[in-house]
């Protein structure tokens, strides 16, 4: 109830990262990280290589247990849950390198992503009662819609591993969308894309947000980060050094010194 009232003023917090620390036998990957992701927004996590961005993703999605701290998703503690349980709550991620099932068709990639939306188990699969066929038809129709959404509708029967690189990145997003996320974590989705593909990608991410999905983004492409983020969180050496809107971040002296200074000059040159 209170969440609905608050929505008019400040949106409720979808994800809260509270005092997270990750140590790999003495090496500090993240030290005391705290930030919040408001519902319906796009929050970007930036920082130089090795700053702990992907580690943060791994902790949030349950692939890595933190040394200390808590991850709260709408009040539920995620730190003790397995990745598939976390996905069932609506927190879904993509991966930096391969975020597709290369040996399957594009359509079956998306259908696999829809795993949680189906109910068919072993006996249903073997005996194939009527409802199993209905479920398959319904999921296939939804999968076609998702492919349409990311612009891969003409590639449905292609082997995923044969797609062009940019298309593979889009398919990665499609698989994640198929898992019906409420909070979507994108790990460097624009890495290796050419400018026009990045442009296309920005459009896709914005449309995902417009569907009511909260987005947490790790990205190096500053054009993308500054273009779509509501909030930017800057990490360096495992700690947060700045947090704010893209404008404030771009003028933050700490950030310019630590990380963005070079990038801004390059952009102006």
């Amino acid at each position, binding site marked *: 109830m209170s969440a609905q009232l608050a929505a008019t003023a400040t949106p409720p917090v979808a994800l809260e990262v509270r005092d997270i620390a990750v140590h790999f036998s003495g090496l500090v990957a993240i030290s005391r990280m705290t930030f919040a992701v408001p519902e319906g927004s796009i929050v970007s996590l930036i920082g130089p290589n090795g700053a702990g961005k992907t580690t943060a993703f791994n902790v949030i*999605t349950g*692939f890595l247990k933190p040394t200390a701290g808590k991850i709260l998703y709408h009040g539920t503690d995620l730190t003790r849950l*397995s*990745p*598939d349980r976390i*996905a*069932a709550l609506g927190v*879904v*991620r*993509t*991966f930096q390198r*391969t*975020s*597709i*099932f*290369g*040996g*399957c068709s594009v359509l*079956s990639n998306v*259908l*696999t*992503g829809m*795993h*949680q939306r*189906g109910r*068919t*188990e*072993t006996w*249903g*699969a*073997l005996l*194939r009662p009527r409802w*199993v066929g209905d*479920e*398959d038809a319904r999921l296939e129709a939804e999968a076609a819609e998702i492919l349409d959404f990311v612009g891969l509708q*003409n*590639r449905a029967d292609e082997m995923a591993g044969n797609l*062009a690189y*940019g*298309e593979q990145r889009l398919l990665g997003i499609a*698989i*994640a969308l*198929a*898992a019906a996320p409420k909070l979507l974590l994108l790990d460097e989705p624009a890495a290796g894309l*050419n*400018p*026009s*593909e990045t*442009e296309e990608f920005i459009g896709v991410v914005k449309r995902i947000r417009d569907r009511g999905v909260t987005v947490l983004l790790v990205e190096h492409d500053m054009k993308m980060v500054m273009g779509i983020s509501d909030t930017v969180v800057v990490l360096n050496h495992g700690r947060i050094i700045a947090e704010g809107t893209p404008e404030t971040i771009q003028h933050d002296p700490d950030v310019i010194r630590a990380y963005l200074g070079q990038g801004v000059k390059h952009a102006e040159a």
Partner: protein
Amino acid sequence: MTARLLPWLFVAFMAVLPLWMHDQYILYVLTSTGIFIIAAMSLNLLLGYTGQLSLGHVAFFGIGAYTSALLSLGFDLDLGGAEPFVLDPQPVWIAFLGGILMAAVFGWLIGRLAFRVRGAYFVIVTISFAQVMRMVALNWVDLTEGPMALNNIPPLTVWWPGEGFVPLYSKEHYYLLVLAVGVLSYVIIHRLVQSRVGRALIALRENESLARSVGINVTRYLVIATVVSAGMAGAAGGLYTHYIRIVDPDIFMFIYTVTMVIMVITGGKGTLAGPVVGGLLFGFLPEVLRDVARPEVQWIIYGAVMIVIIFFLPQGIVPAVGKLFSRKKKHPRHDARTPTAPRITEGASS
């Protein structure tokens, strides 16, 4: 269209084969090859679809064989109490189902273990498991008769109107029974892998982290795969034991697992028809060679054929043939589908 009809044409051909084919020896080879094809199909579910290499697969085959044999013969077992535990001989089909169940239970155990150990460790666990089973069969003489073997195992029966259950002594009839179980196994795997369950299994093979991130409970589906696979291998073992009608600890020999793996890999792992094609090839090759070559040369040719297939068709025979056909079909439209080209020019112009 033809791809869909092909398996059924093949089944129809195999079903009418005994009508004109009266060579008892060839029927015997076909039947034992068929039994191994069922085992290879079950291995394919694990190796081809979930990507887990079980090198102890013969353990499930042997467990099915021994359990089915013991239940159909009956046994008494001194468990240390005053009265030994006595089991009367059970109807042969009850025994057969018992063999499937027992193999499935062990499959469940191995599947749970695979949660902790993957890759090379899973391979070692499964090899050890098969060896332990062989030791048990050799040394638990009270139950298994050890190296003396279990003899006089009754054949499987079939219900015939007016005559009740008739034992299947004739080679033709047993051949048809194996064919029927083979078709059933094929349908089970076909339905499983094309369902939501199958997509989860394949996801596990293709990209386990991504599978987990979309909410697939990896352990659960791995266990389902091992249970179905083990139960099917147990069924093959039951067919085998009631066909040969004698079972000894050599049934757990490593070479049988290797034979199954060869059938799956050469035929094409992760394809439905792969184990059938590979199984027929390597089931028949020794028999064909027997007429034309001396024993030592036979095995050299056997090995050479295998190496040639692996070398030139690393994906296996079935995917290679499939690719050949699809290339022929797609070739005329090749110009129309060069999707990357417009993307590149678009990027360069902006």
